[in-house]
């Protein structure tokens, strides 16, 4: 559980929040390891259980899908390039991303991704694309944005990109 999960949880309203770890944390193997073994889809399934620690009772799942979480390679966005690949604070860049199947998970009114962070700052796409901007499935497409005005990066500092489905693989 991370700090923001505490803030996002609303136990009075019946909701708890949790940020899901990646397979590297779960298995000790890197994504590169799995990619070297399989070219096709990779799937993992995790069962969520909630236990009342006072009496040891497990909370019931109201449906079979309510407590399942599935990790899928086909739902893993991929960053292929940043153009230009030498940039400075405030510069406009294009993040070349294949959103994979993650597009299916975006609500109609929501932004195309959660955030892109370069160095210590999130990027800003105001004026460059609409909130409703969508790209094709399984197609590498530009996501334009301005780097933050105070962005400090060192050489070879890859961006962190989060879609609703989770983190983006940096190729």
């Amino acid at each position, binding site marked *: 559980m991370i700090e923001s999960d505490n803030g996002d*949880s609303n136990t009075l309203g019946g909701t708890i929040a949790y940020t899901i770890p990646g397979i590297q944390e779960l*298995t000790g193997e890197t994504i590169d390891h799995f990619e070297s*073994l399989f070219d096709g889809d990779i799937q993992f399934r*995790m069962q969520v259980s909630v236990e*009342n*620690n006072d009496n040891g009772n497990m909370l019931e799942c109201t449906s079979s899908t309510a407590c399942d979480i599935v990790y899928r390679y086909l739902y893993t966005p991929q960053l292929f390039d940043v153009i230009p690949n030498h940039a400075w604070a405030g510069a406009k860049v294009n993040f070349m991303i294949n959103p994979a199947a993650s597009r299916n998970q975006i609500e109609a009114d929501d932004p195309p991704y959660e955030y892109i962070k370069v160095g210590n700052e999130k990027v800003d796409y105001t004026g460059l694309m609409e909130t409703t901007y969508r790209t094709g499935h399984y197609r590498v497409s530009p996501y334009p944005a301005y780097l933050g005005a105070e962005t400090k990066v060192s050489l070879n500092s890859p961006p962190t990109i989060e879609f609703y489905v989770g983190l983006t693989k940096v190729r």
Partner: protein
Amino acid sequence: MSKRNKRVGVPLKRLLLTLATYAELGSALSNISKTRYLGTSKASNTMSILGGASISIDGVGFAEMPSDNLINFKIEDSDFDGFS
């Protein structure tokens, strides 16, 4: 079998959320009605294999707001089972 078309399904682990509630709150716990992305109404639980998605687990009701440290999360059965 060509590795290109091979699908890998692994029954992996159980994410055990332990609600270390006070006894008087225990009876107010109900069930898990939905697991979904935080802040959305879409109950689709398929995600990136790199993790990082914020999941909202609904239906866990409390009679009153417990303090933050009453909810503990842990991954149970942490040994990787290998491929099935």
